[in-house]
Each structure stands twice: as C-alpha cells, then as structure tokens.
C-alpha cells in the first residue's frame, strides 16, 4: 500500500479558459485541491461555476475553443511492486497514447446527463464491451461476461438481458447505473461523478449514492463527486471544495466546512438547504443577485457584488487568496486574512 | 449594487430594438450575405431599368448579323477617351457556309452615353428614347453588339437586360403566390392542429414526394398555343407555386406549433382576442423574420424552374424573352461550340441563384441565431 497521506490526484492552480468569438470565458480560474484514495472529494457550487470544466480538464478533454492555460494536474500512478510515481497530466498531450491509457483506465467519468450520456443507437453491452476492451486484453466473450458482471454489480436486474438493451429502453436510474458500470469497466482508481443524481428523482438519487458508497468500500477507489447540492455533499463527502466563478473559495474536511463555515458564500449555500428544523412554508433564504457572466467577472473578490459582508474599498479592489484558517481548512476572504498594503 | 443594475447604452438599445432591428444587426455581421444582398439589389435595378440598359430593340432581327461574336469596346482613340467599336462586315464562307465577320478598323462607331435609341417607357410611365449607351444614328447592321447576336441576329446584351426583368419578376410573383398559400395553409395546420393538420401535412408530403420537373412539364405542355405571353407568364407562376408553397407552409406550421405554447399567445387568448387577431397581430409578426428568410431561400428554385421549363420549350415562348428562352438556342453541343457566347445568359442565372442562397442563409442565421 502506498502512503495514505499522498494524494492520488492533486490539482494546482488550474486555469481553463474558452476562447470564444465574444471573448474569453475563464471557466476555471485557479482551482487547487487534492483527492485521496478511498475518500470522496465533494465539489460544490452554483451552476456555471466551472465544476464540469474542472472534471474535463483533469481528463484532458476540454472541448474547443477551450484549453488549460495554466496550472498542474498530478496523478499518482502505480508502477507495480508497490511503488508509485507522479505523472503531470498537463504535460501530456491530450491525444497522446499515455493520456489515453489513463483516461478510462485510471480515471473514469460519469457525466452529468444520464439521458444522453450513452449513444442512443448502440446497445448498453456494446458500449461497455467497447470501453473494456480499450484498456484490457479481453476476448469479446470475456468482455461480454465482464459487462454482465458489471451490470449486476451496479444493481441492474436481469443483467444478461440488459446488455442487449438500448439506452432508451431503460429508465433514468437504470441508465445512470449502466453509465457507472461503463465507468467501472477498467477498474479505475479515481471516479469522477459529475452530478450523477441531478436528473433523477429523490428515491433513485439515494439509491445511486448508496451504490457509489458501496462500490468505494469494495474497491477503495477515490471519488470526486460534483454537485450543487449541499445535502449530497453532507451525506457523501470526506473533503469539500466550494467553488465560485471558477475559483475555490473554501476547502476543508466536511465537518469543518459544515460546522465552522467561514466564507460568506459557503454560509449562504448552507442556509439554503432545507432542514427538518426549518419552519414549513417559510421561504428558504436565497442568495441575492445573480451569478455574473464569466465574460465580465467583477474585479476584486468575485463574490463581492452579492456578498452580505462586503467591505467596500477592499473587496472590490483586491483579490483574496486561498489561505489557511485552521487545520486543513482554507478560505479565500478578507474577513479572515489581512488586506495587502499597496494598491496599484 | 449600483453597477449591477446600470445598463450600458448598447444593451439598452437591444432591449428596445424590435425584432426586425435585431435581425438587421445580426445580418450585418454576415459579410457574404451583405455582398449577396447588394448583388440581388443590383439585379432588381436591372429589372427596373431594363430598357434603359438595353440599346437595341430586343426583338429586332437582322438577317445580316446572325450569330455574330461579341464586339469589344475600345475606349481610347489616338490617346483620347472616345469609346468606340469597329464596324463589322459579314459574308458567307463559301466552303463552310458559315457567316464570318470582319472588323473594319477604319470605320469607327462612337459609343455615346445617354444615346438615343428605340422608344420605351422608363419605369413603365416615363416616355423616352434615351439609353445608357448606344451608337447614335446607326443602321441596324452597323451598330453595337456587346455580347454578340443570336441565331436570328438579335442583340444578346439587350435581350439579356429584358430577360432579366422577366425571369426575376417571375420568381417574385411565384414566391408571392407560394407565400400566400404557405402562410394560409401552414398557419391553419399549425394553429388548429388535429385532423385538418394531418390532412394538410399528408398533402404536403405527397406533393413533395413527386418529382417536380416532369409534373411541371406535363402541366406546362397543356398551355394552349393561342395563349398570350401574359397568360403563359401567370400560368407558369401558378404551376410553380403549386408546389412552392409546401416548404413555406412547413416553416410556418413549425413556428405556429412552437408559438402556440408561448405565454404571450396564451395571454392574448385569455384576454379574449379573436383567433384572427391573435394570428395576424401577434403570431405572424413574431416570426415574420423566419418567413422572410424561408421565402428568400425559395426564390432561386422558382427562377430555376422557369429557366428549365423555358429551356425545354415548355415554358415561356418567343416573343417573350427570359433567360430560359435565350438558352433554348444552345440545346446541343454543336450550337455551344459554334457560338459559345450564347451561354452568357447562364451567368446571371448562376449568379442570382448563388446571391439569393447566400442572402437567404444570412437571413436565416439572423432570424434564428440558435437554430441549425
């Protein structure tokens, strides 16, 4: 076993931008975090804050006109005999064979829309077999046995029949399970699940989350769970990263972030979770204002136009940095660390 | 926050701009489409001023000038600007029996601007005999033949100007007819739905699945010989529009279906507006830009239909002049090889078809920036 303290994936100051005709969209603007084997990292934030783009950046599949402009993504790969070695994914070419041998095999992705994340004109089995045979030397027969096995592992009833089914013949929940089976086909050590439950009803949501948890217990993989639902984070994550407009604004162990949240944005996210204790029929607090468009992000702290604690003259002139405020707890907000002296 | 709610000037303009205004702004961005629009406008200028741009009566035949090749204009005479052409004499080659023409550099015919020529009515009501260019006081044989003459000795340039008028207006009339039918039937189909919709949809499907040229040929062949040019002209537009409406009707129906669900239509319905009022005051204006785009895109097909029919000898017949009628003289390869300049009337057909296509494409993008 390798050292538990060493992360399997570390992302450092990742910046990914889209160079569109209308302007540059800084979808991810300096995100840093780490993922550990056997643990779940939750990434949370409003729609459009760059969660999916972060996931795509890690896999090296950011679509045109986007690309990673800065930062490092380091993956710890096993080299056999218990050793391991860090590979900088950002320095591999997106379509290099090494990158392709990592995609799907070491890092797998469950994308956010179960309805359209599988090809509508290929059977489930065909797609799983295709993925499995990319990285493993399997005969068609073996691959199809593996597919059946995976489908029953993710709880699809009558898996032998299901491999001949087309995606549109399955319900949303079953489709999401099939997608997870596909992601597991090469036994990845890191599973990125991008909003795996958003499109599903509450009961199915809970089942899928249970499934992910039990899979993690069985094979000890790391999970990066992307969601905009604080409730899901509370239930699933060990570590939490809160993103706002492409930046990490707060980061730490789940209990710390929930118990002693520091950043005004995290606090307002937490206030908007319905709880058993809230009075029925009273409107939940919402965060005022709307997310600014990423083309023209505000100067200074990106949250300042909506922040209830904004300090005029400070927050709109200086950019706060992610700094420690306690054990493994990082926050980017001038309420907790000093304002730089000079202003230019 | 203050900055959040202040709106820049340009944004404010967008809020108050009407749909057509928005469409125009987006259209301007398509360079090719804008250029194409200028081309189309230029063509319609020719339509308006065809007789002014011609210089010889397009139907005058001249037995001594059969199939004469284009005659180049020379702009300078002994260093001074004096546009002229050389007079030409023709005789029959006794071996090949073809007429051969010889230019006489000593007999210069001066080409004048705003020269007097045959009489006509400019824009249909101003009596005049002025033409953009011409050789004044020329005999029929010693005159200007910019693009040569056809097999009856008629001046190709002058005929092409008049043909442009015919061919382009046929396209417009046919599209207008199609538009009326298309908006009416497509609108009924989309607005009422149900059985009427199914019937109209099946009708469209059937009409679209029958090859057009044979059908048009069959109908056009039945136009009585004794019909006048005008009667045939309108009969052809009707025959073309008979199928032309189907595409527009589909477009309109599609828009109706998506609009029917929209709030402002429901609001108008609840406010007690009559159906007719809802359709004409609310729904049609909200997708007129799409209709304009679709109609523009369907014009070239109509122009081509007339050209093809006339080319086959089933559409307009002489003395009417259209591009198709002119092309009729190049039915076989011998004709083309002997007098390739007769192919020149293919040029406007191709240019105007492309121009309408590019313009329509730009309009469609401008009307529907998110559509495919």
């Amino acid at each position, binding site marked *: 076993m390798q050292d538990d303290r060493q992360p399997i994936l570390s992302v450092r100051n990742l910046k990914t931008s889209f160079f569109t005709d209308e302007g540059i969209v800084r979808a991810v603007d300096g995100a840093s975090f780490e993922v550990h084997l056997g643990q779940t990292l939750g990434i949370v934030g409003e729609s459009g804050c760059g969660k999916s783009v972060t996931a795509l950046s890690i896999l090296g599949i950011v679509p045109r006109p986007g690309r990673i402009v800065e930062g490092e993504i380091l993956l710890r790969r096993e080299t056999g005999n218990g050793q391991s070695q860090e590979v900088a994914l950002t320095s591999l070419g997106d379509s290099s064979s090494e990158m*392709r041998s990592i995609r*799907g095999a070491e890092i797998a992705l469950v994308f956010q829309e179960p309805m*359209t994340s599988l090809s509508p004109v290929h059977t489930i089995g065909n797609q799983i077999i295709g993925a499995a045979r990319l990285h493993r030397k399997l005969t068609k027969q073996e691959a199809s046995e593996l597919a059946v096995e995976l489908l029953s592992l993710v709880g699809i009833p009558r898996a032998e029949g299901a491999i001949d089914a087309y995606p549109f013949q399955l319900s949303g929940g079953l489709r999401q399970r099939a997608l997870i089976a596909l992601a597991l086909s090469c036994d990845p050590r890191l599973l990125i699940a991008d909003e795996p439950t958003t499109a599903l009803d509450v009961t199915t949501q809970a089942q899928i989350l249970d499934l992910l948890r039990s899979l993690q217990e069985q094979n000890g993989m790391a999970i990066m769970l992307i969601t905009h639902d604080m409730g899901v984070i509370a239930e699933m994550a060990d570590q939490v990263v809160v993103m706002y407009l492409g930046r990490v604004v707060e980061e730490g162990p789940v209990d710390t972030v929930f118990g002693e949240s520091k950043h005004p944005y995290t606090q307002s996210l937490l206030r908007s979770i319905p709880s058993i204790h809230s009075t029925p029929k009273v409107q939940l607090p919402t965060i005022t204002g709307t997310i600014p468009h990423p083309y023209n992000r505000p100067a200074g702290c990106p949250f300042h136009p909506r922040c209830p604690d904004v300090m005029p003259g400070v927050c709109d002139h200086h950019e706060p940095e992610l700094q420690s405020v306690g054990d493994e707890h990082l926050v980017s907000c001038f309420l907790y660390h000093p304002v730089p002296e000079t202003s230019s | 926050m203050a900055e959040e709610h202040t709106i820049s000037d340009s944004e404010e303009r967008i809020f108050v701009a009407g749909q057509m205004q928005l469409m125009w702004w987006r259209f301007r961005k398509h360079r090719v489409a804008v250029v194409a629009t200028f081309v189309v406008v230029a063509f319609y200028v020719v339509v308006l001023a065809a007789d002014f741009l011609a210089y010889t009566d397009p139907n005058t035949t001249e037995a001594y000038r059969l199939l004469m090749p284009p005659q180049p204009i020379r702009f300078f005479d002994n260093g001074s600007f004096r546009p002229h052409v050389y007079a030409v004499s023709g005789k029959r080659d006794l071996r090949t029996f073809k007429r051969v023409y010889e230019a006489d550099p000593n007999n210069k015919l001066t080409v004048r601007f705003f020269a007097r020529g045959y009489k006509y009515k400019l824009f249909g009501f101003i009596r005049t005999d002025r033409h953009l260019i011409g050789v004044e006081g020329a005999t029929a044989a010693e005159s200007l033949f910019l693009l040569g003459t056809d097999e009856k000795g008629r001046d190709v340039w002058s005929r092409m100007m008049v043909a442009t008028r015919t061919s382009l207006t046929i396209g417009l009339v046919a599209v207008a007819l199609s538009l009326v039918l298309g908006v009416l039937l497509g609108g009924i189909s989309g607005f009422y739905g149900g059985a009427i919709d199914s019937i109209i949809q099946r009708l469209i499907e059937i009409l*679209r699945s029958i090859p057009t040229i044979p059908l048009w040929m*069959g109908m056009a062949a039945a136009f009585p010989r004794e019909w006048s040019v005008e009667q045939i002209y309108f009969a052809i537009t009707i025959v073309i529009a008979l199928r032309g409406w189907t595409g527009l009707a589909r477009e309109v129906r599609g828009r109706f279906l998506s609009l029917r669900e929209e709030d402002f239509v429901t609001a108008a319905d609840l406010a007690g507006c009559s159906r007719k009022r809802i359709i004409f005051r609310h729904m049609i204006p909200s997708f007129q830009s799409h209709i304009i785009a679709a109609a523009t895109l369907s014009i070239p097909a109509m122009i081509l239909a007339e050209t093809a029919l006339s080319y086959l000898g*089933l559409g307009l017949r002489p003395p009417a002049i259209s591009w198709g009628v002119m092309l009729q003289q190049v039915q076989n390869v011998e004709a083309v090889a002997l007098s390739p300049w007769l192919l020149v009337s293919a040029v406007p057909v191709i240019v105007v*078809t492309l121009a309408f296509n590019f313009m329509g494409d730009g309009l469609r993008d401008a009307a529907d920036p998110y559509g495919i």
Partner: protein
Amino acid sequence: MLAYAARRLVLAIFTLWTVTVLSFIIIQLPPGDFVDAYMAQLSATQSNVSEQHFESLRRQYALDRPMYVQYLKWMSGVFSGDFGTSMMWRKSVLDVIGDRLAMTMVLSLGAIILTWAIALPIGIYSAVRQYSIGDYVFTFIGFIGLGVPSFLLALVLMYLGFTLFDSDIGGLFSPEYQLEPWSWGKVKDLLYHLPLPAIIIGLSGTAELIRVMRANLLDELRKPYVITARAAGMSERSLVLKYPVRVALNPFASTVGYLLPYILSGSVIVSVVLGLPTLGPLLLGSLVAQDMFLAGTIVMMLGALTVIGTFLSDLLLMWIDPRIRFEMVQ
C-alpha cells in the same frame, strides 16, 4: 415496428394513387380528347381514315363516358400492363419505353450512390474539422453545387469537353454499342459513361447532403455520449466513427426520401441536354407532340419510382435506427 412500416406503406400507396390521378389529369389536360388529336394527325398524313376506327378507339378508352369511368378504364389497363398507345410512334406505350425505364433507374441509382459516396466523407471531414481551410473550401463548392442548375452544368461541361478534349461527353454508350444487344462489353461501356451524368445529376443533392451531414454531426459531436466515449479513452478517430457518425447516419438515410424527387427531376432535364437514353427525352418529345398516353405513363413511372424508392429508404431507416425499430420515435 410493424405499425411504422404499415403507416409508411399506407402513405406510399396513397401517394402512388395521387400520382396516377395527376398523370391522368396530365393526359386529359390538352384541349379536345386524344382521338381528336390522333385524327388530326392522321388526316394530315393519310387521306383515307375510317370514321369507324375512331369510334372504336373512343369506345375503347370510354371517351364518351364520365371522367371517373375513363380513369378507371385507364387504371385497369395499367394494372394489366396496357398503358395505352403512343400516337407518335404508333406502338404500345410500353414498347416505346423499352429499356429506358431501366436506364433511368440505373442512372438515378448511380447518382444516389455517388451522392452518398461523396457527401458522407466530406460531411464528416467538414464537421470534425469545422472552420478549417478544407471545411471552407467544401462549403464553398457546396454552395456552387446548390447554385448551379444541373442542366447548365451539363451544358458547360459538354462545351468544355468539346473544346478541351474534343470528345462528346453525352450519351450513355459509345457509338459502337448504341444499337448492340446487351453484352458484358456493353455493360462495361455503360459503367464507363455513367459517372459523369450521375455526378451532374447528383451535384445539388450532394451539396445539400454535405450540409445535412455536417450539421447533424456537429450536433452529435456536442452530445454528452461523445464525452463519455472520450473519457473512456477512445481515440478521437475511432470514437467519431463509432458513435456520432453512426447516429448522424440516421437522418442521413432518411434524406433518400427527398433526394429521389430531385434526382429524378434532374435526370429528366440533364438527359435531354446530354441526350441520354432515359425517360427524359422521351417525355419531352411526347409532350411537344401531345402524345399524351406516353407522356402520362412516363410521369406516372417517374412518380412511382420516387414513391417506391422513398418507401424502401423508410424501411432502411427502420432497419438501422433501433429507436424506430422499437417504436420510440414516430
């Protein structure tokens, strides 16, 4: 699946019926009945024409009865293989048509196959390399293809062939095979002459199909399942070919339905220009001579070809698209 096929079949039969009605209308359109025209033509050439002969003809085609009876009479003839008599040729319509129907089918099929073979790879290339130089070049050529009417293209190519290569590009056979009975040599000769007219006829359709394929594929390339496949580590090339191209093929297959009317239309007029031995020149000749049974039959055959072709392409679509096979899409 059966319901889909049945629906298509009913529509096809209905369209076929409409085609027969339209063809019949075309036969009836010229003023006077056809025996009048026949009589006029005969008496111009021959002096002794028997009144009885015309009377029997009138009875044969029920010309003295109401229109619908005439239609039924004609249709029952059609069903028993009797399409009427050609006045111009004094032969039965079927004899006049001979193998021209087959030639039309060969030419149209050739045009469709070429259209597909050209449009598919170019469409894929243009979508995958969107906004590349190649994409712009193909888009431009596509526009020209849409803009230039096929018969003009045929004329221009014929002129170029004549002046540059001094060869006649018209016809489907070399002169030595023209009147020969069918043989291997003749088939080879046909295959040698076929591509050029097929391309001319298919050009505007090709341009349209490239646009369709490019747009479909661009749409598909943005779909999440592409991200799934990419994230699984597939190489871009095999991924594009396996998934999005396959999905985009479905609407592509259904384009045969609207391609066919264009191609058959185009074949008529291009055949006239290039002098191909298909139905086109025969149709023109019969219309000019008001030989209406021949003309009506040809219009009907061309219509029937489209309807049948469209129906077959619907079945093809059903076969390749599982969503239709399982009746998810109507």
